[in-house]
């Protein structure tokens, strides 16, 4: 059984990748501008709805309920889609999903497809798999086009080319468009309007002749068999409407039970994502409809590590994610390191908890991802489905350091502690012992305070590697317990809280 593939394999662990990214000033400038702009707009869009807290709670509950009865809703979805004229396929991993899609395309006799931006198809490396099967996949979202033409990788869930500025985009278009179809107009400048126009002309010829479209979906409704795609540009509508065959590859966690559930997410997703009251276009389709739109519809339900994630009682909440990217835009680590440092198609805080669960923590990058956070909690505050990302991060750190039971590719396994975390493991054990022995803790703290001038900047011995990327906190002049007792006159917090 091959490991779960979540795109972009074989990358440096987060600390190295991040160090490199932080040194790139253009990237940091682009990122700061972008994340701060969206962040401020989002806060305004959220403040506009007085029942945000209730919508968020409803979203959390709908998703949790669905996950807790996922088998039932998947079967219901399959039945509804089939009744509406679609065909449902099940894919246990990336290789199987890619094979199913390639076979479906080949059966149409076509050798090119147009694609709506979709994280799921990036996750499984579909474009590369199609290429190997002699099929050319055209990305049609403007940002994805920039990424594809630039032979680059996406760096943000919503604005995948956020790391590129207009000058770079102009150069990519001028140089590469001709290779893929209609070339960029002569004398193309770097104004966004002209660049968008060049993309419009380049892609329109592809839309109008395409016979096969490939998409993901933001939501699938079990009750009705309806799929929903939320977008801005209209490329989604083009791919969902004009081709004769539509193939949607969707993670199995995207199902919601009822039609009515959409009223929650269609309010929270656009405001969290692009900070709009509503995104420009949303398409909903239920199977096939006579002469309106594709005649043939295939739904590929993707596992690829999702059921392993579901098996983790703390970590399964990551499957509530609706990919709004709000957590990226508030994350101080993402803002400096950029999306590529995460080494997966899911960047930012959600990537830090989702990728190591989908792929396991065997590789260096995956073992390092739970540390790609300052645990400041901003990601939890903005998450429209209330995923407690810090909680999952700490849980995954413990798993990396301590090992323990987990599920991989459907099988129960006992994970070994990750290599290179010996110092942390020792520190965790020591902390656990000290917290269980308050007397020793008190003595140790007092001792540390009195000798604080002598403390080194980095840790000696096995701790050196750990402190190489972290600043050791200075030891305070007086232990907290002593300060509390001196100023509150009692030894425990509860006694003082009146």
């Amino acid at each position: 059984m091959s490991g779960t593939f979540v795109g972009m394999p074989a990358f440096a662990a987060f600390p190295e990748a991040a160090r490199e990214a932080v040194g790139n000033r253009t990237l940091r400038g682009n990122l700061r501008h972008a994340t701060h702009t969206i962040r401020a707009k989002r806060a305004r869009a959220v403040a506009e709805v007085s029942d945000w807290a209730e919508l968020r709670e409803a979203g959390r509950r709908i998703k949790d309920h669905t996950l807790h009865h996922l088998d039932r809703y998947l079967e219901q979805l399959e039945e509804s889609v089939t009744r509406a004229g679609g065909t449902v396929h099940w894919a246990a991993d990336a290789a199987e999903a890619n094979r199913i899609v390639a076979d479906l395309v080949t059966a149409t006799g076509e050798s090119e497809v147009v694609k709506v931006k979709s994280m799921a198809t990036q996750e499984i490396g579909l474009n590369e798999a199609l290429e190997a099967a002699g099929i050319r996949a055209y990305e049609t979202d403007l940002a994805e086009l920039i990424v594809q033409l630039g032979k680059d990788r996406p760096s943000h869930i919503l604005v995948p080319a956020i790391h590129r500025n207009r000058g770079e985009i102009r150069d990519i278009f001028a140089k590469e468009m001709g290779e893929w179809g209609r070339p960029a107009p002569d004398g193309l400048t770097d104004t966004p309007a002209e660049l968008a126009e060049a993309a419009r002309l380049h892609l329109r010829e592809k839309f109008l002749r395409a016979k096969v479209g490939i998409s993901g979906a933001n939501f699938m409704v079990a009750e009705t068999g309806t799929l929903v795609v939320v977008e801005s540009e209209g490329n989604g509508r083009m791919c969902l409407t004009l081709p004769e065959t539509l193939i949607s590859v969707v993670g199995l966690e995207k199902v919601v039970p009822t039609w009515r559930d959409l009223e929650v997410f269609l309010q929270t997703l656009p405001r969290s994502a692009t900070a709009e009251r509503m995104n420009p276009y949303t398409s909903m389709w239920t199977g096939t409809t006579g002469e309106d739109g594709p005649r043939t519809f295939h739904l590929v339900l993707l596992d690829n590590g999702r059921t392993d994630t579901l098996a983790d009682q703390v970590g399964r909440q990551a499957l509530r994610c609706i990919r709004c990217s709000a957590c990226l835009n508030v994350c101080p680590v993402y803002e400096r390191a950029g999306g590529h440092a995460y080494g997966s198609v899911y960047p930012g805080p959600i990537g830090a908890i989702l990728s190591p669960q989908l792929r396991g923590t065997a590789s260096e990058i995956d073992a390092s991802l739970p540390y790609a956070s300052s645990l400041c909690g901003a990601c939890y505050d903005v998450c429209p489905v209330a995923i407690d990302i810090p909680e999952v991060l700490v849980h995954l750190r413990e798993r990396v350091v301590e090992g323990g039971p987990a599920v991989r590719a459907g099988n129960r396994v006992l994970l070994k502690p990750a290599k290179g975390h010996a110092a942390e493991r020792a520190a965790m054990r020591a902390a656990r012992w000290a917290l269980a022995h308050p007397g020793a803790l008190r003595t140790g703290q007092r001792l540390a305070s009195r000798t604080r001038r002598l403390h080194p900047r980095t840790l000696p011995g096995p701790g050196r590697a750990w402190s190489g990327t972290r600043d050791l906190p200075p030891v305070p002049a007086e232990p907290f317990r002593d300060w509390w007792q001196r100023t509150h006159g009692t030894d425990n917090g509860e006694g003082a809280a009146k």
Partner: protein
Amino acid sequence: MSSRERVLGRVRRALADVRPDERPYEEAVGRDYLREHGRRSTEETVELLAQNLADYRAIVHRSTAGEMADLVMRLLAERGSQEVLVPPGLPPQWLAAADPVRIHDRAESTPQRLDQVGSVVTGCAVAIAETGTIVLDGSPDQGRRRISLVPDHHICVVRVPDQVVSSVPQALDRLDPTRPLTWISGPSATSDIELDRVEGVHGPRTLEVILLSA
């Protein structure tokens, strides 16, 4: 074992710790959020729709049945469209004064053919005031999804106040999930280049909404 069985088996094993919750779904989820935001009169709701449409750069017009034909003629003339796409059930009096050649969307017309048409006129299924959204459901006065997508200029007629609701929950109540639905909030737009908003990438670059009162 088929992949279907394998995946469903994994799901069930993953959920071994979950205690069965036999409450009905609606009770288990609870919906404490609002059905609409704020109290408004019918006129105020229509006014909010107009404001939010304009905020997303749709061009809003108001009309009565008597003025419609002249208004539509003027809008088409301003665009210089030679041809206008017409869904099968569009009230013919709306186009009574229009000069452009009417093009009907036939199953055999290729997308390339539709791409040559300058404008399209449709009705809608429902419009949402709080978000400035119009929804098309493929009814005879709206036609197939592709006709409101390929031409660069879309004129959409909303009957006020009948077709206007306040909120997203109210709109979903009115819609039929078995029909293909297109939700439109302003013209096509992208913010992919340095987050500068640019209107019109692939869908119509100009959206004009006529609020038609009886």
